[in-house]
C-alpha cells in the first residue's frame, strides 16, 4: 500500500514539499511506484519503469540536497506511450511496433527530464492515438477509475490519452504527458475528472512523438489542477529546430498568469455548441460555468461560430488522410513487427493486416480513399477549405472576446463496449474539441461537476493562439469556483 498522504498532493504541493525537504524524491517516487502497481487492474500503464524512476529520483535528491533544484525535480510522471523514450519500449499501443526501443528521446520528454522530472512508465492509449475511449489499444482497454454508483460495469477513460488520464486521476502519477489530435487530452481529462491542456499548435515540439495526423497533433499535459498544467506546460514548451512546425516564440511563466483576476475579460459562449441530443446536465453545467465567470467579473458574450457543424466531418477527412501517409512507414522492413513472406507485397499486406487494429485500418483506408485521384478535390481539398473557414470563425470571434467557454464532451464517461458497434457515435465525442485542433488555438478542459450518474463533467476554455496565459487564468478561476473535490471510486492509496 502506498503512502496516501504523498499521493494526495498536487504537483505544485509536491514540488514545494520536495523543496522544503519534507520528503525525498525517492520517497515520493517509491510511493508512486507502489501506486502504479496498485492500479494495475485499470491497465493504465503499458510499461512501468520503476527502477528508472528510482534512479531519476535519486539524481533529483542529490540536486535538491545541493540546493540546485530544477523546476520539476523529483516529480513522478506518466508518459503517453506515443512519446519515444530512449531505450524504453515505445509501442503507440500497436502490435506493429513490437519490440521497438527508440535510440532517441522525444524533445518534450527530454525537456521534462532536463527539468528533473521522473518517469514512472509509459501510459496506455488508443492505438496510434486513434480513438475516444482507449478501447483500441493492442494492450487492452484502459478502465476509468470512476464508476457509476451501484453499477459495476467498467467505464472508458476517454481517449486517446486514456492511460495518462486514468493514471493521474487514480493518483498513480502526479501528471502525465498526452497528445491531442481531436480532443485526446481534453476528453479523457473530462471523463476522468482532471485537467487537460492542449496548447497552441507549435508550442510543444512534435519531434519524437509518433505521428498520427501531423497538422493536428498537439503534445500537452494532463494534471490534477490548472496550476499543475501551467507548471507542466512551461517545462514542455519551447522552440525546437528539429520540428519545422515548432513556433519560435518565447515561453512565458504560465504559473504567474494565475492571478485569479478575470475582471473585464469577455467570455464567448458559442450558440452552435448546443448540439442535438446533448444531455440537459451538460447544458446546465455549461450555464453554471458562465455564471461562475460572470460572478468573478468576466463578461459573457454570446457569439457565433457558424462553421462548427463542419468541423467534425472536416476533421475525419484531414486526420485519416495524414494518418494514411504517416503510417506507411510501418511496413515490416526496418523495425517492429514483420510477418515473413515470400513476396514483397505479401510482406506489406500480412504485416500491416496483423499489426494494425480495426480502427487504425479503418482510418488508413478512409485516408487513402480521400487522397485518391478523383476524390482529392471533393474530400481532402474541400476539408482544407472548411478548415480555413473554421479558422476564420475563430479569428472573428476573438476580435470580440478573450476566450470561449464550451462543454468539453457531449457526455460523461460511458461503459466499455457501449459505443463499440458505431464508429460514428464514437467520433461524435470529439465534436467540441476538434475545432481547436483544426485551428491550432489553445484549449483547456477543467472538471466542474458531476453528472446524474455521479461521473465527472468538464468545461473547456478556448483561447487565442499563443495566449495560453488567458486560458489558464480563466481555467484557474473556473476551478476555484467549481471546487470540484470528488475522487474516483478507485484511487491508489485510497479505499476500494
Amino acid at each position, binding site marked *: 500500500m502506498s503512502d496516501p498522504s504523498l499521493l494526495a498532493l498536487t504537483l505544485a504541493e509536491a514540488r514545494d514539499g520536495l523543496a522544503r525537504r519534507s520528503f525525498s524524491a525517492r520517497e515520493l517516487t517509491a510511493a508512486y511506484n507502489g501506486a502504479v502497481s496498485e492500479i494495475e487492474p485499470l491497465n493504465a500503464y503499458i510499461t512501468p519503469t520503476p527502477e528508472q524512476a528510482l534512479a531519476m529520483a535519486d539524481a533529483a535528491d542529490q540536486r535538491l540536497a545541493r540546493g540546485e533544484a530544477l523546476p520539476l525535480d523529483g516529480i513522478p510522471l506518466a508518459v503517453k506511450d506515443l512519446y519515444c523514450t530512449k531505450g524504453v519500449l515505445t509501442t503507440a499501443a500497436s502490435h506493429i511496433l513490437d519490440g521497438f526501443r527508440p535510440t*532517441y528521446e522525444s524533445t518534450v520528454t527530454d525537456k521534462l527530464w532536463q527539468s528533473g522530472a521522473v518517469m514512472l512508465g509509459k501510459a496506455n492509449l488508443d492505438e496510434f492515438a486513434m480513438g475516444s475511449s482507449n478501447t483500441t489499444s493492442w494492450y487492452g482497454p484502459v478502465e476509468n477509475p470512476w464508476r457509476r454508483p451501484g453499477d459495476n460495469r467498467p467505464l472508458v477513460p476517454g481517449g486517446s490519452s486514456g492511460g495518462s488520464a486514468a493514471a493521474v486521476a487514480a493518483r498513480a502519477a502526479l501528471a502525465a504527458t498526452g497528445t491531442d489530435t481531436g480532443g485526446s487530452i481534453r476528453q479523457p481529462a473530462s471523463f476522468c475528472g482532471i485537467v487537460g491542456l492542449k496548447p497552441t499548435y507549435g508550442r510543444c515540439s512534435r*519531434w519524437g512523438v509518433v505521428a498520427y495526423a501531423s497538422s493536428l497533433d498537439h503534445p500537452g499535459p494532463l494534471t490534477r489542477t490548472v496550476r499543475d498544467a501551467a507548471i507542466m506546460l512551461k517545462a514542455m514548451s519551447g522552440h525546437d529546430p528539429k520540428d519545422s512546425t515548432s513556433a519560435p516564440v518565447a515561453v512565458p511563466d504560465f504559473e504567474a498568469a494565475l492571478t485569479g483576476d478575470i475582471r473585464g475579460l469577455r467570455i464567448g459562449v458559442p450558440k452552435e455548441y448546443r448540439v442535438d441530443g446533448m444531455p440537459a446536465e451538460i447544458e446546465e453545467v455549461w450555464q453554471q460555468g458562465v455564471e461562475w465567470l460572470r460572478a468573478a467579473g468576466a463578461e459573457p458574450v454570446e457569439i457565433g461560430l457558424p462553421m462548427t457543424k463542419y468541423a467534425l466531418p472536416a476533421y475525419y477527412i484531414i486526420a485519416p488522410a495524414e494518418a494514411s501517409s504517416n503510417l506507411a512507414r510501418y*511496413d515490416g522492413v526496418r523495425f517492429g513487427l514483420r510477418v515473413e513472406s515470400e513476396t514483397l507485397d505479401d510482406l*506489406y499486406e500480412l504485416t500491416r493486416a496483423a499489426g494494425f487494429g480495426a480502427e487504425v485500418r479503418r482510418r488508413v483506408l478512409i485516408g487513402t480513399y480521400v*487522397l485518391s485521384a478523383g476524390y482529392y478535390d471533393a474530400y481532402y481539398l474541400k476539408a482544407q477549405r472548411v478548415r480555413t473557414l473554421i479558422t476564420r470563425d475563430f479569428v472573428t470571434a476573438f476580435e470580440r472576446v478573450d476566450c470561449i467557454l464550451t462543454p468539453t464532451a457531449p457526455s460523461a464517461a460511458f461503459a466499455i463496449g457501449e459505443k463499440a458497434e458505431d464508429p460514428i457515435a464514437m467520433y461524435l465525442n470529439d465534436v467540441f474539441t476538434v475545432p481547436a485542433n483544426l485551428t491550432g488555438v489553445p484549449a483547456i478542459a477543467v472538471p466542474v461537476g458531476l453528472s446524474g450518474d455521479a461521473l465527472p463533467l468538464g468545461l473547456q476554455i478556448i483561447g487565442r493562439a499563443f495566449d495560453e496565459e488567458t486560458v489558464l487564468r480563466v481555467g484557474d478561476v473556473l476551478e476555484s469556483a467549481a471546487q470540484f473535490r470528488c475522487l474516483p471510486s478507485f484511487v491508489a492509496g485510497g479505499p476500494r
Partner: protein
Amino acid sequence: MMEGRTGWWETVIGLEVHAQVVSKAKLFSGAATQFGAEPNTQVSPVDAAFPGMLPVINRFCVEQAVKTGLALDAEIRLESVFDRKNYFYPDLPPGYQISQYQQPVVGRGKVALDMPDGTTREIGITRLHLEQDAGKSLHDQHPILSYVDLNRAGIALMEIVSEPDLRSAEEAGIYLRKLRSILRYLGTCDGNMEEGSLRCDCNVSVRRPGEPYGTRCEIKNLNSIRHVMQAIEYEARRQIDIIEEGGTIAQQTRLFDAGRNITRPMRSKEEAHDYRYFPDPDLSPLVLDPEWVTRMRVQLPELPDTKKARFVSAYGLSPDDAAVLVAEKETALYFERVAAGRDPKAAANWVMGDLFGALNRLGVGIEQSPVSAEQLGSLMDLIANGTLSGRLAKEVFAEMVATGADPGSIVEAKGLRQVTDSGAIEAAIDTVLAAHADKVAEYRAGRDKLYGFFVGQIMRATQGKANPALVNELLREKLTGESGGAR
C-alpha cells in the same frame, strides 16, 4: 526527322533530368551524402523513417535550386510547397517521397543550345523542383533476398523538366551536355552520370510534321547521354513502325536495355501508381525573401553563353573555338590562365590541339592535366622570346606531359635552347654545304627542291636547336648570294 516506309516523321522529346544537388548534407535530415560510402552508413533516423522523426529543410539545397533556376533564366517562386508522393517500396522508408508537385520552387525558364550548323536553338524549361532521392535496392546480393542501402535515401535532387521542344536524339544529347555544363558552372550538381548524380527520364512521341503530338512513352532512369540518345533512336523507330503498320501507341513507362539496345515495357498507364499527392503537413510552405533572390542573381557566376560571347569579343576567337573552350568550366578557366597576357589564338590552339590530344591519350580531364596552365603559359613565353622554336616547343611539351616538369628546367636539362647565335649557325651551314658540294651544285643548277634537304641537314647538325628563321636567312644568303662558293 526520321524517314519511315510511308514518309517523314518528327520525333518529339521532353526530358526530365534528376540532378543530385551538390551538398554535404541531405535535403531534410542532415545526414552526410558522400558517394561510395559503406552501405547504410550515411543514414539518420529521419532517412530511415523511424517513428516520430521529422524533416527540416536544408537551406543550402534551396539555395542551390534557386541558383540553378536563375541560371536557366527561370521564374523563381517566392512561395513553394513540399508535397508527399505516396507509394510503398523498401528503398523508400517513409512510404512517401517529399517532392514538389503543384507549386515548385522554380517555374518556366529556358536553355540555349549551340547547334552543329552554328545556329542557336532555345529549349523551354517547364519547371525545376526539389525532391528527395530514394535508397537503393540490391537484388543481386542473395539468391532470394533483396538488400536495401539507404545512403542515397533523402539526398536532394533537382528535377528539371523540359518542354517537349527537342526533335532528335542528337538534340537531346546537346541539351543534356549544355544543361550539365550549366550545372557544373554553378557547382549545383557535379553532373557525374556514372555515379548517378545526373539521371534522365525521356518522354518520346512521334508525329507527321505539322500534326498534333502523338501518344508518348516515358523511358525511365537513363544514366548516360549515349543511352539517352540510343533509347530515343530506338523508341522513335519502334513507334513509327507500329503506326505505319496500322497500330496505335499505348501510353507506357518503358525501360532501356543497354545490352540489347532496345526499350521494353515497365508498366502501362492502367498500372500507373496513384501517388495521392498532398502537402506535407510536417513542412510549412517554403518562403523566399525577394532580396535574397536578388543577391543570388547578382552573385551568379559567368555562365557558358556569356563566357562564349566574351571569348569571341575579347579574345577574337571564332565562335566554334569559343564554344569548345567554354563547354567545361575548368577548360575555360585553364584557357584564360594560359591566354593572360599572351596571344589568345595561339593559347587556344595549344589548349585545343596539343593539350587536348595529350589529355585524350592519358584519358584524364583537364583538372588532372600533368601540364598546368602556368606551365603551358611559360612554354608559350619561351616561344615568344625566341628561346624555343615551334618544333622544339612541341618536344618540350611532350616532355612536360611525361614528367610534369617546368618548360624552363626541361630546356636547361636537355640543352634544348634554340641556337640564335648566327656564327654557330653559319658554321653549321658551312659544314653541311661543304659536305654536300655536289648537291650545292645541283641546287644552283636549278634543283630548288634540294633547299629542304639542306635545312634538314643543318637542323640535324644542330640537334634541331637552330633558330629556323636564322637558318633560312643565312642559308639563302650562302646558296644564292655567294655563287663563288665558300670563302
